């Protein structure tokens, strides 16, 4: 019984990653400072850096489409400040 339950649990888990970055035209003070510092440290081929946030999200759901919908909702309702940020959802394993 216990084993079966565990199996089910595994089957029902879908994992996603969400990357949140500032929208293209929004000033990214943090990215700018990191970029300048790396350049002054001699990282010559560096072109540009944008700083963002990363979330790993597990959803108790076996329908991928539904799960993605849920993650999307989480993003728009909480994780992302849509006024200044963009996000990208990717499926992990």
């Amino acid at each position: 019984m216990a084993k079966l339950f565990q199996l089910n649990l595994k089957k029902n888990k879908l994992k996603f990653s969400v990357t949140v970055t500032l929208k293209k035209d929004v000033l990214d003070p943090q990215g700018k400072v990191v970029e300048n510092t790396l350049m002054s440290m001699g990282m010559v081929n560096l072109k540009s850096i944008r700083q963002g946030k990363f979330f790993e999200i597990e959803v108790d759901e076996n329908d991928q489409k539904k799960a993605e919908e849920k993650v999307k909702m989480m993003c728009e309702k909480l994780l992302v400040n849509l006024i200044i940020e963009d996000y990208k959802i990717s499926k992990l394993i």
Partner: protein
Amino acid sequence: MRSSVIVFPGSNCDRDIAVALEKMQFKNQMIWHKETSLPKTDLIVIPGGFSYGDYLRSGAIAGKSLIIDEVIKLAKNGCLILGICNGFQILTETGLLKGTLLRNKNLKFINKDVNIKVLNNKTQFTSKYKLNQVLKINIAHNEGNYFTDSKHLQELRNDNLIAFKYCDKKGNTNLDSNPNGALDNIAGIFNSKKNILGMMPHPERMIDKLISNDDGVNLFSSLLN
């Protein structure tokens, strides 16, 4: 006694610490972070503030600046180094002090007067205080929640390297008297040679009774000895 205050872009307690040092008769000079060498000095102070805006991690970018190599060199030769607030964060980023400062437990900036207790008064920074003396000192930070691994914590305890702990008026250290979630209520630590002190509270804000109190004075007068 000669002191040098390192100024980073975004340091903002540099003037305050300079005022305190001069009031306590240090011969002080301000050193811009782009310098590559330090003049002769007995004490180096890394002041509070938001060096590089606290971007990436507080203290991280300042930890990579030119002058820091020189500070590390002098530290190894036994020069006294005091890091306050952002200065403490920078010292942990450079590795001169172990551990790190995480975001405050309540995820908010905290500015208030808190009580701290002197745990070791047999150092060059604290000799004028009494053991277990309770001080009232101002804190002002976003990331003051000290954390380190259990091995280092043991070392801090065994070797008497904890300088100050947050406490209540009577000196009790407990959850209620811990403003930011710091491990073991730690407010300041020494390195193993006790020539480096990093602390979150601001002693330079406590040298004038009109403004606050003078609980910070003895830290500077200990150094003068």
